């Protein structure tokens, strides 16, 4: 017999009777907690929206006084409004993509929709990282050209500074190093989370996509 016909015949006789559950047991299964990729994606997505917005509340209040001394508080307020609009846009996109995920779609479509939901969060994270980087650069440029503001702010918080010139130099270098390090670390963190979560899905998606064309 053709080995594949033989296989087919055997496959048809396969039954897993000893693993069968009765309807009561099956009913219990339905109400147990499930953990799947889409659920995790949703949880992590919401956690990220929360994280980036909590970050703004955690800023020390007198930090705003620096903006005032630099006369950029209006620009900062305008940016805050813009940022909130961006947040609403991303939340809406995220929700829309998430709702579109259907286990009844064909496999390729389902994978596409899951990855699209993930991409929304990815772009949001990249947006936030860029905003931080840009903000860091802009504020530091202003501070660089108006160093007295910086010195008086720092002296107010931590006492007299002896060698302002040397201190300022160290300050900018430290700011740069810490800023770059933070962004790299956050980027790595996201890669890790999504890398672990979506490894299998990405692999299957690539393989299936090849067969679709």
């Amino acid at each position, binding site marked *: 017999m053709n080995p594949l016909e033989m296989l087919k015949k055997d496959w048809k006789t396969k039954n897993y009777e000893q693993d069968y559950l009765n309807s009561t047991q099956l009913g219990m299964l339905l109400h147990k907690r499930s953990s799947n990729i889409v659920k995790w994606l949703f949880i992590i997505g919401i956690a990220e929206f929360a994280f980036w917005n909590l970050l703004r509340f955690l800023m020390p209040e007198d930090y705003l006084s620096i903006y005032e001394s630099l006369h950029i508080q209006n620009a900062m307020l305008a940016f805050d409004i813009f940022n909130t609009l961006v947040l609403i846009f991303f939340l809406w996109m995220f929700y829309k993509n998430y709702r579109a995920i259907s286990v009844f779609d064909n*496999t390729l479509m389902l994978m596409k929709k899951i990855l699209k939901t993930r991409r929304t969060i990815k772009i949001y994270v990249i947006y936030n990282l860029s905003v931080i980087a840009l903000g860091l650069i802009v504020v530091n440029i202003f501070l660089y050209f108006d160093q007295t503001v910086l010195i008086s702010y720092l002296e107010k918080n931590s006492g007299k500074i002896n060698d302002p010139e040397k201190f300022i130099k160290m300050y900018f270098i430290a700011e740069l190093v810490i800023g770059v390090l933070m962004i790299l670390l956050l980027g790595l963190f996201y890669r890790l989370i999504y890398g672990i979560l979506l490894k*299998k899905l990405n692999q299957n998606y690539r393989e299936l996509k090849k067969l*679709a064309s």
Partner: protein
Amino acid sequence: MQNATYKCNKFYPILKGIDEQEFLKILEANQNLVHKVCSLYTSDRASRQDLFQEICVQLWKSYANFRGDSKFTTWMYRVALNTALSLHRKEKKFKQNTGIDFFIEKLEATPYDPTEAEQLKLLYKAIHELSDIDKALVFLYLEDKNYKEISEMMGISEVNARVKMNRIKKKLKTVLNP
């Protein structure tokens, strides 16, 4: 096809007034199919139970949108494979069992013929080593689905499904005649 969106609320079918008992009865009668998919995609008991549960949950969630549409089993194939390929991630770390044993433990059911049994063992072992996507194709082939159905279910072109399946068949045959 109806507009079947993923519902995050697992009580959604209840809210839509769908009888859980009725669903459970149909699921109970057709569960062998789900067990088959699970045996294909996992290599130990814990992972198998895990995937089995996830598929049941997904079937229940989407049951509301299935009603009146296509055959129950066709819909089950779709949801079960989609869950295994796209939604399910977890493979339990500790392996209590050496995978393949599970897959071939049913061999006793076939009439005893040493060469045939040995060949089947080799074939199942080869299937178990295939990629997730290839496994899905083999599964649908073994379940007698035609290429049109396979291509619709997976979202790939019919030609490519055929070409790929032929390649897998050839690969499986070479396992027997290396």
